[in-house]
């Protein structure tokens, strides 16, 4: 399945091409007009342009805007952490591990189990940091294990199958894990125990909530660790070699199977971290938690350039900020009501927009030789 991928040079010819050009222009135009209207409304909600775009506009306060951006960044950091797993697996095996979002969800689920148990024992309140570390390691352990089992059971037998087969399988795996968590833990929303005050309070000059700081710090630490792993260790070298060409890597004496397992394990571990961050930040988890963040994280990986690890994190931040700010920045000024409902729609529209305008992502794709078309 080699698709025609890059936007074609030369004048548009077919109807589809013209339509796509129109779409691109419309998308860019919509964003520009919306943004212009936003600025106009920020300056003065009574000027003619602002009134034309949305007579009911109220503008957005500076604090509100900052709050949105910070929420977007912390959300985006989670997407970025999940996106790393998608990006790494895609880079090495060339397929979308659709079930990766569920690995994240199981991380959050595990966090709920361990944290409630710790809260029952009274440790959660008395020693939050200590329990947090335990919870974190529990989640990393479970997510890593789940990702590795998944690879072994569902994906390894399908190496070399037509491209869509492992994708369909991963959809099945995702379905299975999602419903597994529902039948095992029940369909109700799982609430994390109450967090200590300093996690909820705002800190520093920028008025960032403690949980957001934790998320951002965790994401930054993870990125550094991952960078060290991939660029500075032997394992990382093996990963890069397998990503480039698995067959040649095998000929060079690299254990391809073990490397692929490592890739899944590392991806799973990051998804576990993201799961805990989700739990700390939003305080609850249900069986469907993994689905949307999973898709958005994949979108982040695509936006950043799939296979590019730094790109995954940047893409995550991009999507996170865009979906937090976008509705209020672009849609609200244009008179769309109830914009917060359209958050997810904006995230998907971002994915579609990026694929229309720059399909190889911000930093360009890094794919296996055979996947480059």
């Amino acid at each position, binding site marked *: 399945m080699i698709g025609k991928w890059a936007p*074609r040079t030369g004048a548009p*010819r077919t109807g589809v091409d013209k339509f796509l050009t129109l779409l691109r222009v419309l998308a860019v135009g919509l964003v520009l007009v919306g943004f212009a209207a936003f600025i106009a409304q920020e300056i003065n909600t009574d000027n003619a342009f602002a009134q034309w775009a949305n007579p009911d506009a109220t503008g957005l306060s500076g604090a509100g805007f900052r709050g949105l951006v910070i929420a977007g960044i912390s959300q985006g950091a989670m997407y970025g952490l999940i996106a790393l797993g998608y990006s790494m697996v895609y880079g090495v095996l060339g397929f979308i591990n659709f079930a990766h979002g569920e690995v994240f969800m199981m991380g959050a689920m595990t966090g709920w189990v361990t944290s409630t148990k710790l809260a029952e024992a009274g440790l959660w309140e008395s020693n939050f940091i200590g329990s947090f570390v335990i919870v974190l390691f529990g989640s990393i352990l479970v997510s890593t294990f789940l990702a590795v089992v998944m690879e072994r059971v569902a994906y390894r037998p399908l190496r070399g199958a037509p491209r869509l087969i492992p994708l369909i399988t991963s959809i099945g795996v995702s379905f299975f894990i999602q419903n597994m968590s529902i039948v095992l833990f029940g369909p109700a929303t799982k609430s994390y125990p109450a967090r200590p005050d300093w996690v909820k309070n705002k800190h520093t000059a920028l008025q960032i909530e403690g949980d957001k700081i934790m998320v951002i710090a965790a994401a930054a630490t993870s990125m550094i660790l991952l960078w060290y792993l991939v660029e500075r260790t032997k394992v990382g070298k093996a990963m890069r070699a397998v990503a480039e060409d698995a067959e040649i890597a095998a000929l060079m004496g690299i254990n391809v199977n073990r490397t692929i397992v490592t890739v899944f394990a590392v991806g799973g571990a990051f998804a576990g971290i993201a799961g805990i961050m989700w739990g700390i930040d939003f305080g609850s988890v249900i069986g469907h938690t993994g689905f949307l963040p999973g898709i958005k994280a994949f979108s982040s990986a695509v936006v950043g350039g799939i296979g590019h690890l730094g790109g995954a994190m940047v893409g995550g931040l991009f999507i996170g900020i865009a979906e937090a700010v976008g509705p209020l920045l672009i849609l609200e000024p244009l008179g769309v009501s109830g914009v917060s409902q359209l958050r997810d729609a904006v995230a998907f529209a971002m994915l579609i927009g990026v694929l229309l305008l720059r399909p190889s992502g911000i930093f360009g794709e890094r794919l296996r030789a055979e996947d480059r078309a």
Partner: protein
Amino acid sequence: MNGSSVPLLEIRDLSIEFGGLKAVNGLNMEVNDGEIVSVIGPNGAGKTTLFNAISAMVPITSGDILFESSSLLGLDANQVTARGIARTFQNVRLFTNMTILENVMVAQHCRTRQGAFGALLYTRAFRREEDEIRARGEEALSFFGSRLVGFRLNQPASVLSYANRRRLEIARAMATQPKLLLLDEPVAGMNPVESAELTRLIGRLRDEWGFAIIFIEHDMSVVREVSDRVIVLNHGELLTEGLYADVSVDPRVVEAYLGQETIVEDAIKS
């Protein structure tokens, strides 16, 4: 050949780069109606890239490709085929799970019109067109004797032997009703008997079906046998062109083949 002054295919200053690597560099060439031109050159000389450029499968960096005096630039591969250029692939690429007949039927896609409604209403026009497609497909297949017809028609292409796959691929290209046929190493991997037979068929393709043919070939006996003209590429540039007899003794060609010169000499002797 038939006296028209405008060449069928004209390539002007064609350059193709892949990330800084110049696969084809400032190439000029022409092919006339009913002419058989062979393209030779050492590995990596840009022969297949040239084919890919003509059939719009790689973007070109600069230059122009004119077919029947109008440019092919910016066309999709299917539009190029619709204009009348068909090709085969170096590593045979058939629709292996489709039957042999379906392979040649599907190639007539751009020559036929019936859409979904004709098929749904099973109109008379639809049935007539299906019959025509089938007849033309079988005609193309029977060009290769009885190998691809009869009970083979409804077998998947994957059961064919290597040589027959090559033949089917040529039949498939013929079925698109081209004016110009691009054959990428048509006899590669065939034994001498098969390759001699196919060489004769290439001549017949021009004489009976009226195609102009460009083919890439390493087998000098084939090149000598059928080509009206030989174009030699080296490092993406035109080294020389002319009659086989002239080109094969050109020291630059021998030089380009470097070490492979014996092949050229052997071919001349034999």
